[in-house]
């Protein structure tokens, strides 16, 4: 079954989205999105005099070159009998809109690699029957079956999940400020349906007005300072507009920025530079009159709905300009803190249309049956020194399976205890015990040799099976833990908070244990090396190492991390010297035996030492050892 997509057919910009795995996603434009912009493209259609049809960004780019062949904002004429006369041919507004829809259809098909034949299209809440019919016709011309027209404010509310609010009826106000238009809609939501109560707006008010006042102000202050009017200088204006747009966006998150344009122009005295500091306060002062103009539309909509601001339960913001703090403050001053957050205001209409499309396509039902859960907390086992070693990280979608190979911590250890844990703390004691069991019958062998595979398998119902298998004997043990997700929401939150609180303390403790484990390993390696080397090492070197081992053993269980690190390094260096000396000896021997020495002998002693260091560490790396069972 082909996908049903959601389309936001806007006055200035259009965009499309679809649902995947329960989430709405934007469909990118085929010509590639602009690096700075979002995924929407201009609602612009053009015919070139050589007969090409252009839609979107390419059409906008050539608008100045070909004004008679370019159409902007055909949406404003939908449902009227207006005709666009382009190169002796006439087009209806729905035909122009159809070109935009056709582009979306084509781009989506390219994106999915599949046919797209159905769509949900959004329309302003105030659209009358003729305008709605025209939109449907546009879809049909483009080869799309319009399964439903959805009001733009309704779609935005869907994107914010307002339809999921259970319980009593609620009043929602949608404030949609686009590049050139403002739409205010008051809706009532009850029994799963959004009902439009009133609409109001201003067709000549939007983000573009804000850009203009800012640019004008910058040009005026430059004129005041330098006496040069830049408004007729195309090149300078281009740079100013770009820099202003950037500054405006920056000022949504910072309090001050600057417009820095060196060599912006020149006169007889030489080049002139522009360096204007601009603060958020200044920007807000400039756009305040524009923001204030929105008040009229809000008041009108509220009056028509016979509502007071206090009886509005939720406010939804749509459109780029609503990202500006001043706009948000303005809304909050009227309605209080009721603004729904979390969705990109420029994408929410298309996303809401996609959600509606998925519901109509029956995908919602499928989702309910196949609703996949996640593990709220990390699952792992306790390893040497009481450390929690995670196997399944939190937020993993279940069912999931993960296994890891561990080894023993002592020579001739014949059993290991598997202690399954749940939680975010790095030390086992801070986490919740899910269960424990013992795997025995491991053949006696040196530490680190046995391979014990530990497997965590959590099924769709959250039932966890922990198994351990000795790879040599094939012997295995397992336990099943039924309540691995039986914690209440509060308990989970508490555990997460504790983990954050103790993070640094745990880290220190873990570091101490890590270094202790490393020390144990090092001592073992060194003792073995001395034994293996026998008389190949000089007695004084042997004595030095033995002394160092003794020293390490003494401080190993102490609390001085730095001293332990230092002693560790000392022993490492010493044993490396021995290793290097042994290789030297071997080299001398092989040189006397062979005429052509092998490559590594070419290296100088420093390199030799480095490579030795790596060799010395190799057996330790990547190995995890189980708590020894006495």
């Amino acid at each position, binding site marked *: 079954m082909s996908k049903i997509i959601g389309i936001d057919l806007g006055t200035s910009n259009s965009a499309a989205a679809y649902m995947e795995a329960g989430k709405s996603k934007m469909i990118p434009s085929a010509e590639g999105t602009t690096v700075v912009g979002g995924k929407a493209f201009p609602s612009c259609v053009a015919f070139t005099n050589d007969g090409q049809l252009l839609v979107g960004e390419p059409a906008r780019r050539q608008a100045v070159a070909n004004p008679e062949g370019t159409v902007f904002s055909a949406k404003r004429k939908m449902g009227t009998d207006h005709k666009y006369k382009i190169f002796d041919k006439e087009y209806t507004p729905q035909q122009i809109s159809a070109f935009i829809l056709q582009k979306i259809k084509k781009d989506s098909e390219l994106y999915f690699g599949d046919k797209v034949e159905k769509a949900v299209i959004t329309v302003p809440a105030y659209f009358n029957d003729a305008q709605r019919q025209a939109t449907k016709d546009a879809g049909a011309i483009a080869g799309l079956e319009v399964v439903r027209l959805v009001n733009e404010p309704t779609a935005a509310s869907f994107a914010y999940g307002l339809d999921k609010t259970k319980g009593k009826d609620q009043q929602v106000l949608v404030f949609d400020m686009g590049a050139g238009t403002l739409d205010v809609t008051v809706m009532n939501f009850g029994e799963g349906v959004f009902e439009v109560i009133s609409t109001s707006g201003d067709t000549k008010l939007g983000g573009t007005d804000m850009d203009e006042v800012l640019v004008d102000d910058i040009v005026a202050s430059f004129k005041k300072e330098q006496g040069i009017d830049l408004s007729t200088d195309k090149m300078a204006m281009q740079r100013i507009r770009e820099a202003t747009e950037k500054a405006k966006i920056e000022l949504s998150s910072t309090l001050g920025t600057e417009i820095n344009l060196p060599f912006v122009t020149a006169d007889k005295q*030489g080049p002139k530079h522009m360096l204007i500091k601009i603060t958020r306060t200044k920007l807000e002062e400039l756009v305040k009159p524009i923001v204030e103009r929105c008040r009229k539309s809000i008041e009108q909509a509220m009056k028509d709905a016979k509502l007071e601001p206090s009886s509005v339960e939720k406010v939804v913001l749509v459109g780029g300009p609503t990202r500006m703090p001043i706009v948000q403050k303005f809304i909050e001053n009227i309605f209080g803190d009721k603004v729904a957050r979390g969705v990109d205001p420029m994408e929410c209409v298309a996303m809401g249309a996609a959600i509606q499309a998925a519901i109509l396509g029956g995908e919602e039902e499928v989702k309910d049956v196949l609703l996949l859960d996640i593990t709220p907390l990390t699952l792992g086992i306790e390893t040497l020194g009481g450390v929690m070693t995670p196997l399944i990280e939190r937020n993993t979608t279940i069912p999931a399976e993960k296994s890891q190979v561990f080894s023993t911590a002592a020579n001739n250890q014949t059993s290991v205890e598997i202690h399954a844990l749940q939680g975010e703390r790095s030390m086992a004691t801070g986490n919740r015990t899910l269960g424990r069991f013992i795997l025995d019958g491991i053949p006696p062998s040196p530490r680190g040799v046995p391979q014990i595979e530990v497997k965590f398998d959590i099924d769709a119902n959250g039932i966890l099976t922990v198994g351990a298998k000795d790879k040599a004997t094939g012997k295995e043990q397992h336990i099943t833990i039924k309540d691995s997700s039986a914690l209440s929401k509060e308990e989970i939150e508490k555990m997460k908070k504790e983990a954050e609180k103790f993070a640094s303390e745990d880290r220190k403790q873990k570091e101490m244990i890590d270094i202790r484990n490393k020390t144990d390993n090092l001592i073992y390696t060194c003792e073995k090396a001395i034994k293996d080397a026998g008389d190949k090492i000089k007695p004084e070197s042997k004595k030095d190492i033995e002394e160092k081992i003794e020293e390490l053993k003494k401080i190993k269980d102490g609390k001085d991390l730095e001293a332990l690190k230092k002693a560790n390094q000392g022993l490492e260096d010493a044993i490396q010297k021995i290793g290097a000396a042994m290789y030297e000896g071997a080299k001398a021997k092989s040189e006397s035996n062979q005429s052509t020495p092998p490559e590594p002998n070419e290296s100088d002693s420093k390199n030799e030492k480095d490579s030795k260091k790596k060799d010395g560490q190799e057996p330790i790396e990547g190995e995890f050892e189980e708590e020894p069972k006495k």
Partner: protein
Amino acid sequence: MQEKETKKLKKKLEEERAKAQKYLKGWQRTKADYMNREREIEKERESWVKFSNSKLILDFLHLLDSLNRCLMHIPKESKGQEWVQGVIQIKRQFENFLKTQGVEKIKTVGELFDHNCHEAVDRIQSKNFQNIVASEIQAGYKMGEHIIRVAKVIIK
């Protein structure tokens, strides 16, 4: 009696079979979705690397614009000076850097207007309109087929 029981069981079996089939299909679909997503992620990753490089370059282009404007304003009497030559060499370094990144300047003046890589900012009104680029307001750049920044131009 037994017949009735058998019939009931058969019916139940049919239902269970249908259910199993439905689940299997769902399972296959999910697995396929997953594998397709994996491939998509790989593609997305590649394009992201390219994309983020070009975004970085885009930000640097403003510096090159300023440097170019600076060079346009070298006072006549200073043109031969060594330090001016040094600044010109800095510009060359910049251009070489772009070249090694595979970034190319978009041709403008004298070219036929191309909506794929040019953006018309203005049009010189004349009877003999040829739709060619008269002057460049802001240089444009591309990386292979990917346009990093369109060239802003005046056409005639």
